[in-house]
């Protein structure tokens, strides 16, 4: 038997416990993705219930359905265009008055609404009593009490939702919000006008359309024009007249008056259904907040939390990172022994496994970081962090919440950019994403350590600190620049709710963490794999290189020479000679590797692009190293190791010496560090940018902007430094 399908959308304010209810209903059977074209998270899940196949959609949390923010547009369009069978409005019972604002807007749209009065237990302890029967009667909407975090009332809620979906119930007109006489007159005039001229072409409830048009709702206006064509112009002219009349009458915009009157309607309902006992209880949340946002210790506590998150993510995360890394190495070694030597083996080990490995290795970091962020969000601390930091971030033209992603950037840009999801305004998010790569991530540090260590000796620490500082300064300048040009305008208003502190549910935290990490693995994996395969191909081919000398033969000769020497030598010298043999062979092998790299496609490309890099003091070897750094910035070091023919076994000291004797000057080294700091983000970061901005355009912009800036700054450093003779 085919089960009947019903779609149920969950709407509600942020912090109303909507996600908890969604998690309780769907459990782990949920799909997380993005709403088409935007980066607002879309969650849905399917369950079976009393013979129905229910599709549950978690709409973005919003305070209203006025289409200002992308979340509101998404939520409203879903209800209008996808027409879910039932919309459940999840209402924080301890916050009834404000929650009813969204509820009244939902009731105005022609959809079947059901109220879930959530967290009824919290409300009760705060002395709030709600008469659900009266509320249900006054608003003509079924009402169910739920306690999301204890999974209470959820069954009843679903049953009621199914019942409502199967009925042909509509909210009676007389129970809807009545506006004052002048506004009602205007509404009915518009209704008539539309009814007479274009009733068939308006896809929505006519009264609702009239209200929205009167409120000067841009989206509805466009839709009406689209659907009605020529008559649309007439409708808009009528609206214009009505609006002018009302502005004259009230000395304010109709949408403002109507917002006011909706709250007036709500106040009437609240009077009838809500009783607050006068006894004052100790408000724990408020007391906690007095400490956490305290004038003197608020910041130190905040810095401690951030420090702890950093430590957990990158220090604790380093252990599982090591395990994964050894696991991958073990696997590669195993394969190296089992498979015959050929190009396929090289591809598998150095291309595929190295590529996939470089993603896998980030997983512990990502898991821990997202766990911490989920903890901040679910406890309610995230909005306090924004509250504390807003003043500082506002100077760059950003929202207080931008601080977390930017700070995380010092660890790894990938999770940092993903953490920008916590920002509500799309412009804030894009701006944060664009400047986060200037936060010098940990992968860039090895490059600085080698270069600064080789050329600046005791001053290395200061130089590296200066590089980090340069990144921060440029991010501030970039932020201000973009805010006043590309991403101008509505600097998101800081009208932010500070929800009561709550003890988070471990299940929610884990679901949250896993959802985001899964996205990381799935999406980043593909890009990084592709990128590392390309780089591998470029360095591995052409396969048959004509070497300048026959290394294999020379190695054989050296071996034979030393073997005869060793045989002839006295016992005491034998060990010494054997050592010399090893060194000589290793030197030849390193030389061979360097020549192979030079003659590979990558080396050739490096020589082609070298003229671009020569004004900033970087030779072709540096250019190749920078190109390979596209896969991951730390690869710059290993490529330099190969190209400068440093003996791998002696680690960084050898590379430092090789660099010193290569003719590189300290100022060139500094220019290269500046370039590494700023130039295009690694492929994983680009994948994250592409994903989080949902646009190829921003990714390409980020590549161009950062690379141009890098070149420009490095040019200034190199030419300027050379000129003053540093």
């Amino acid at each position: 038997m085919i089960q009947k399908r019903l779609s149920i959308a969950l709407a509600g304010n942020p912090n109303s416990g909507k996600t908890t209810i969604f998690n309780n209903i769907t459990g782990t059977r949920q799909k997380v993705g993005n709403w088409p074209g935007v980066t607002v998270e879309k969650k849905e899940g399917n369950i079976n219930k009393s013979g129905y196949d229910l599709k549950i959609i978690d709409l973005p949390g919003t305070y209203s359905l006025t289409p200002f923010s992308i979340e509101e547009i998404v939520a409203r369009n879903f209800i209008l265009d996808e027409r879910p069978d039932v919309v459940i409005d999840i209402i924080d019972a301890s916050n009834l008055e404000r929650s009813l604002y969204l509820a009244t807007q939902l009731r105005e749209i022609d959809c079947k609404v059901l109220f879930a009065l959530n967290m009824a237990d919290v409300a009760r302890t705060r002395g709030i009593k709600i008469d659900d029967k009266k509320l249900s009667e006054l608003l003509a909407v079924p009402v169910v009490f739920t306690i999301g975090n204890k999974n209470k009332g959820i069954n009843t809620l679903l049953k009621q939702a199914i019942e409502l979906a199967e009925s042909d119930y509509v909210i009676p007109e007389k129970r809807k919000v009545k506006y004052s006489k002048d506004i009602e007159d205007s509404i009915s005039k518009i209704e008539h006008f539309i009814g007479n001229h274009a009733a068939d072409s308006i896809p929505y409830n006519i009264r609702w359309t009239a209200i929205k048009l009167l409120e000067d709702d841009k989206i509805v206006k466009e839709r009406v024009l689209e659907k009605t064509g020529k008559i649309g112009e007439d409708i808009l002219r009528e609206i214009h007249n009505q609006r002018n009349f009302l502005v004259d009458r009230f000395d304010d915009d109709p949408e403002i008056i109507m917002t006011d009157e909706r709250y007036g309607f709500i106040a009437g309902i609240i009077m009838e259904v809500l009783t607050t006992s006068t006894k004052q209880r100790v408000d724990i949340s408020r007391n906690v907040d007095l400490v956490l946002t305290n004038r003197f210790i608020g910041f130190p506590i905040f810095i401690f939390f951030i420090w702890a998150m950093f430590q957990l993510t990158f220090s604790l995360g380093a252990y599982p990172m090591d395990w994964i890394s050894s696991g991958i190495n073990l696997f590669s070694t195993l394969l190296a022994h089992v498979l015959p030597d050929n190009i396929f083996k090289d591809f598998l080990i150095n291309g595929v496994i190295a590529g996939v490995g470089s993603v896998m290795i980030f997983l512990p970091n990502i898991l821990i970081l997202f766990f911490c962020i989920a903890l901040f969000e679910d406890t309610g601390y995230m909005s306090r962090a924004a509250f504390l930091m807003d003043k500082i971030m506002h100077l760059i033209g950003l929202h207080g919440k931008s601080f977390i992603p930017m700070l995380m950037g010092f660890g790894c840009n990938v999770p940092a950019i993903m953490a920008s999801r916590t920002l509500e305004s799309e412009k804030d998010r894009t701006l944060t994403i664009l400047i986060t790569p200037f936060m010098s991530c940990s992968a860039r540090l090895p490059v600085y350590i080698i270069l600064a260590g080789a050329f600046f000796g005791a001053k290395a620490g200061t130089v590296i600190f200066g590089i980090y500082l340069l990144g921060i300064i440029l991010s501030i300048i970039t932020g201000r620049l973009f805010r006043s040009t590309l991403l101008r305008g509505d600097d998101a208003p800081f009208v932010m709710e500070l929800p009561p502190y709550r003890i988070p549910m471990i299940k929610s935290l884990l679901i949250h963490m896993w959802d985001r990490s899964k996205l990381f693995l799935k999406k980043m994996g593909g890009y990084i794999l592709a990128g590392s395969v390309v780089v591998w191909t470029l360095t591995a081919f052409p396969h048959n290189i004509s070497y300048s000398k026959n290394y294999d033969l020379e190695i054989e000769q050296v071996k034979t020479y030393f073997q005869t020497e060793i045989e002839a030598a006295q016992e005491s010298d034998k060990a010494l000679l054997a050592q010399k043999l090893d060194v000589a062979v290793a030197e030849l092998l390193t030389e061979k590797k360097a020549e192979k790299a030079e003659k590979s496609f990558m080396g050739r490309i490096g020589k082609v692009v070298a003229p671009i890099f020569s004004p900033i003091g970087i030779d072709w070897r540096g250019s190749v190293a920078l190109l390979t750094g596209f896969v991951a910035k730390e690869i710059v070091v290993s490529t330099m190791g190969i190209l400068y023919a440093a003996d791998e076994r002696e680690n960084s000291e050898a590379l430092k010496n090789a660099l010193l004797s290569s003719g590189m000057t300290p100022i060139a080294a500094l220019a290269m560090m500046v370039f590494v700091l700023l130039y295009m983000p690694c492929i994983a970061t680009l994948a994250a940018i592409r994903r989080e901005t949902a646009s190829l355009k921003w990714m390409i912009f980020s590549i161009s902007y950062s690379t141009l800036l890098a070149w420009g700054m490095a040019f200034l450093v190199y030419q300027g430094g050379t000129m003053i003779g540093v």
Partner: protein
Amino acid sequence: MLLSEMKEKQTATVVRVGGIGALRRRILEMGILKGTRIQVEKYAPLKDPVELIVKGYHVSLRVEEAAQITVENVK
């Protein structure tokens, strides 16, 4: 008096919400309307933004936004 001039723990009644466009409407939609009783809970450590209690919940506004709101009957 302007909301931004109020001291911590003072309460007042909103007389007028000024400002323009989306921000003004957003403030209204969050329940800060003419006639609403509001309390200044506290200012952030850097004196901006400000935390208010309105209709039983806590909300924060930037000081420049609070300066658009006129209040009376300050206690």
